[in-house]
């Protein structure tokens, strides 16, 4: 989900968004706050992407709109600045300690399949992520918005000439990417905890996924996350002590064979 958001933002808008991890963290904290007030996990799951969509749109309109022409260096500086600001805001408001989102009722235990135990919540996450991925894929392939986005990735100027309001498309895309990141933040809350610094720990992984999958392609993001997830799980068993290496080995191989990523478009 994270990767899909980042990938589309980069592919369409040509913006390198290092603050994507921050959106994920903010989503988790919005979830935490909503849960604290309402006690309802599902409400938090809806509130976080909505809130992040709004935040994303605001940031796009106020800041990004001004620097599309300035090149990647400016974008990296700006978005890196955002990561610092967000993490300090979070620390100031919520403190440095780790919070944990409670596992939603009905998903606390474990399920035993063929003598192997799976955490119910983890199965739910897998199911939920698959549904979101499928939904994204369908929207990307079949819907009008998906067509506009794909056209935008392929040729931005042409899209503008066709009379489509690029500004609105950009704002929408950015907000949507942020919302996806916010959603991901809540979903992992009961599993990985919520703490300042969770943004950094995920960002590198997401960037690897995007590079492996190919920029500007939802399918690529999904494929990339599956591959990296597998490498992450199998790596320690096969290569004990070289977990990190296994992920980057996959990335290196992909870059050697297909520099544009598995499903990326040729530059």
């Amino acid at each position, binding site marked *: 989900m994270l990767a899909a958001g980042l990938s589309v933002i980069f592919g369409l808008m040509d913006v390198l968004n290092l603050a994507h991890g921050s959106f994920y963290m903010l989503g988790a904290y919005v979830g935490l706050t909503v849960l604290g007030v309402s006690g309802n996990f599902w409400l938090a799951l809806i509130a976080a992407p909505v809130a992040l969509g709004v935040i994303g749109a605001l940031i796009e309109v106020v800041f990004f709109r001004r620097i599309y022409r300035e090149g990647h260096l400016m974008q990296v500086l700006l978005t890196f600045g955002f990561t610092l600001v967000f993490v300090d805001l979070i*620390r100031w408001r919520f403190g*440095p300690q*780790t919070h*944990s989102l409670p596992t939603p009722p009905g998903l606390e235990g474990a399920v035993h399949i063929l003598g192997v*135990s799976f955490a119910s919540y983890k199965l739910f996450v897998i199911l939920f992520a698959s549904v979101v991925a499928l939904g994204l894929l369908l929207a990307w392939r079949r819907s009008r918005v998906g067509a506009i986005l794909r056209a935008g990735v392929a040729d931005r100027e042409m899209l503008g000439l066709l009379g489509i309001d690029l500004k609105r498309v950009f704002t929408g895309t950015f907000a949507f990417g942020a919302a996806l990141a916010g959603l991901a933040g809540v979903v992992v809350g*009961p599993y990985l905890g919520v703490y300042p*610094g969770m943004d950094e*720990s995920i960002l590198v992984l997401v960037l690897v996924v995007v590079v492996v999958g190919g920029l500007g392609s939802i399918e690529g993001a999904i494929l990339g996350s599956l591959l990296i997830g597998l490498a992450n799980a199998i790596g320690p068993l096969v290569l004990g002590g070289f977990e990190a290496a296994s992920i980057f080995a996959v990335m290196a191989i992909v870059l050697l064979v297909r520099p544009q990523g598995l499903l990326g478009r040729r530059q």
Partner: protein
Amino acid sequence: MAKSSDAFLGLGLDDALTRRQVLQAGLAGAATIGLAACGQAEPTGGGATGPDFKVGAVLPSSKVYAELGTSITNGMKLYFDKVGNKAGGRKIVLLLEDEEATPDVALAKTRKLVEQDNVDMIAGYVASPDAVGARDYLDQNAMPTLIANAGANVLSRAKKSPYIYRASFSNWQPSHPMGAYVAENITKKVTLLYANYAAGSEAAGAFKETFTGTILAEVKPPLNNQDYSTYISQIRASKPEAIYFFLSGTDANNFFTQAKQVDLFANIKVTGAGFGVEQDVTQAIGDKSPVGAITGLHWAYTLDNKENKDFTTAYKSRYGRLADVFAMQGYDTARVIAEALNAVKGKTDDKPAFLKAIAAVKFKSPRGDFRFDSATNNVVNPIYIRELVKDPSLGYVNKVKTTIASVADPGQ
């Protein structure tokens, strides 16, 4: 840069300045500004006669160990405020710098405190690599230093320095007594689980020194791991009767949460080094805490002594949360500084005498009897074997089962 330096020094030379001179001028300027800033930050207090005693604290306020750093800082402030920020007739001023969790950053911050702020003493270091990385610089500059957490054994052994004392623990101390205890009282079939870095492997090594049973497997996730499912499968596959773990901070949060979700501990007992079940973790994960876990540590929240009651009560009322072992270490670190200052009546110009005073500090700490070992410059204190319980009023806290008096690092 060169121009403003010229103006600053009032030099009329045009081409004669070397790069080195410019740098020196710049440094002097920065130092002046730094000092001026410190001067403004000082609270005005009465009674103290000598110049301010400046303690430079290198502690993380960001990154993975932010929470530990905050606890230690809170503990130090709590003690310094308790003694009115004065000792030996001198006002104590605490200057904080962010250690992050990066050795080169920690070293740069240390240099800044020593060279620009002219501190009288350095305290802090949460991550072992940061303390080891700063060690040579501190040693060469003969800077009196108190380590407030970093447990790397080597700092009490091959890399011991006459200027560096440790008020926290060595990684060896909490785990060494646990090997014998687990083998005699719990089980002889154990799988080890530890974060794959210095502290983890040193703790596991100390455990193995006294454990007489069989180690079925050693599962070694990297530091700052997120998903533990692979490691949980490895533990299951080795079919142990208990695990012995060394994980702390977010690693412990993630592991215990995920282990609970697949009911790993239905018939596997939990034993380990106590950091992973301290209040910072149990307050974060609540009912996912591994109740019944048997762990070794140099403190427990529920220790029944007057100093600990005073400390935990004062901490709770000031910060609104339960103290943890890191806060206790900060509290003791501050106390060592104050006691040593009192002993030399604030005269720290005679450095050997001041270091001697640090070495001789001895008091009743919340953890029990506190003193330094002259052979290692490391703290000697009791190790408590504790059980994690759910207390109706305090929540998840550790209760002491057995006490091992005065455990000292072997120094080699």
